[in-house]
Structure formats: C-alpha cells, structure tokens
C-alpha cells in the first residue's frame, strides 16, 4: 500500500488534465518572465556590451546564436527522454510533450543555423561551410523534422508515437558529436565560449548579458513547450468530459460573432 501511495505523484503528473490545469496557472507569470528577460538581455547585449576587438559589432549575433543552439541541443534530450518515458511507462502525456518539443526544437535549430550563417559572412567570408559542426547541426534539424513527420505517417496515434520515440532515441547519438565537433575536427567554428568546467573565455561585460539571454531562452522554451503541449492535450482528449466543459465555457465567454 505504501509503495502505491508513493507513486501517486507520478500518476498525477501523467494526467493530461492535471498538466493542463497546473500550467494554466503558471502561464501569466511565464509570459512576463520570458518577455522581460528577452528584452533585458537583448538590449544589454546589442547596445551596452562592448564590441569585440577582432570581430567588431558582428559578434553581437552571439546573443541569439548561442542561446538558440543551447536550447536546440537541450530540447533534443528532453524530446528523447519524453519518448523513452512514453515507451517504457506508456504515459500518454509524455508522448504529447515529445511531439510538442519537435517543432520548437526544429525552429531553434533553424535560428542557430541562420544566425550562424549570417554571422559567418562578415567573420569567415562565407555563409556556409560543410564542416562537422554545421553539418551535424543540419542533421539535428532533419532529426527534429523526422520525429514530427513520423507523427503524421501512421493511421494510429500509438504507432506514430512509438516510431517517433525510437527515432528520437537513436538520434541522441548526434548530440555529443555536435558538442565535440569543434574539438575533434578542423573547423572555422570557434570552440565553446562557455564551459561548465572552466571560466568563460569572454570578458564579464560581454558574458553577463549572454547569461541573461540564455536564461531568457530557457524561459521561452518552457513557455513554448507548455503552449504546444496544451494544444496537443485538447486535441487528443477532445472526447473527455472536462475538455467538453472547457469548450462550452470558452464559448459562453466569447460571444458568437
């Protein structure tokens, strides 16, 4: 009996309704936090951080390039872990989170690639090189798109979930390759500016705004993931009583045009 009670939190967390209602209370705060952090970090980085001695002002692209790349990689782990939890414990909510993480990750990977290309032109003299870092990042984009596409490739939701989760798990091989690509192979890409194990190779005046934008990007990711997951919950649970009640309430709140 005791063990059954201990697992209650796990089952409650797996309940789409619980997720929907709890995150509904968080959303206003998360919106305020995200918007204020993004604005603070970007204005600080773009207008007040000193320019780079070698790269001049083009280095300011770092204030979106690095945070987007961070979350593109961290988001892939999250998606793969959500897929694994779905496969192992057959948790419905977990698959919904996995599917929601795919378009967000794809968009962030696109931002990382795009800002990198635009930064490359004034710095390296070219928009694109087929080196290990950039190519493995492009593979990451295709992995995200693949996970998303598999969701729509089967008639049964169950089969789509399993296929997506397996692709997500197999694709995790790519993540350490991306991290290490700048050390393992010759590349134009500079090596990591921020490492957990050592001080950043950057002046504090440049580093502090970067830290703000990184925190802002985590907040943004949380917000986007919650918004997408809530849509997924409504779509998959549309026959549940509480969703119907929600739809009725929304209708009465918003008079028909």
């Amino acid at each position, binding site marked *: 009996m005791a063990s059954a009670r201990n697992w209650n939190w796990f089952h409650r967390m797996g309940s789409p309704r619980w997720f929907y209602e709890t995150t509904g209370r968080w959303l206003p705060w998360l919106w305020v936090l995200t918007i204020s952090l*993004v604005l603070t970090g*970007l204005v*600080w980085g*773009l*207008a*007040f*951080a*000193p*320019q780079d001695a070698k790269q*001049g*002002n*083009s280095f*300011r*692209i770092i204030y*979106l*390039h690095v945070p*987007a790349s961070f979350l593109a990689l961290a988001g892939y782990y999250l998606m793969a872990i959500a897929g694994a939890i779905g496969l192992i414990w057959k948790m419905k909510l977990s698959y919904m989170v996995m599917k929601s993480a795919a*378009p*967000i990750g794809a*968009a962030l990977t*696109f*931002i990382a690639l*795009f*800002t990198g290309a*635009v*930064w490359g*032109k*004034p710095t390296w003299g070219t928009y694109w090189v087929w080196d290990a870092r950039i190519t493995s990042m492009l593979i990451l984009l295709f992995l995200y798109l693949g996970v998303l596409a598999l969701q729509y490739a089967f008639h049964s939701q169950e089969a789509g979930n399993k296929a997506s989760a397996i692709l997500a798990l197999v694709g995790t091989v790519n993540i350490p390759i991306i991290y290490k690509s700048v050390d393992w192979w010759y590349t134009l890409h500079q090596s990591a500016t921020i490492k957990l194990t050592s001080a950043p190779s950057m002046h504090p*005046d440049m580093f502090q705004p970067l830290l703000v934008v990184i925190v802002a990007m985590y907040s*943004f990711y949380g*917000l*986007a993931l919650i*918004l*997408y997951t*809530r*849509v997924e919950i*409504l*779509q998959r649970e*549309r026959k549940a009583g509480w*969703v*119907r009640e*929600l*739809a*009725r309430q*929304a*209708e009465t709140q918003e008079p028909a045009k």
Partner: protein
Amino acid sequence: MTFQFESLQQMWDMAGHGPYVWTAILVSLFVMGWLLVRPLQQHSAILKTISQQLRQREQCQKEHQSANTSEEDK
C-alpha cells in the same frame, strides 16, 4: 555600463555590420514570436470546433427525440 554608440543611427549601422546583426536578430525574433502565436491560435480553434460539434450533436438529439415523441402521439 555605457551605451556603445553615439546615436541610434550609429547603432543601426553598427559600423557596417548592421545588416548582418539586424537580419539575424529580426528573423530570430520573428520565428520565436511565431512559435508562441501558433499554439495560441490552435488552442482557440480547437475549443471552437469542439463546442460546435457538441452543439450539432445536441441539436440532432433534440430532433430525434421530438420525432420519436410525435410518432408516439400517433
């Protein structure tokens, strides 16, 4: 902490790097904004579809019931 440019015009130019920096920033912010707006639109669209379906079903049931009762009257 000091403002690094002498004017907003200079900040826009960024000593020639303006086009690169601002393209990167604006495209990224556009994509990020789209990531937040799209689920909001889908959210209200789904709720609308569900309530419409519920109303249609209720109407069907009513018609069915009234048809039954009128048959019983005969």
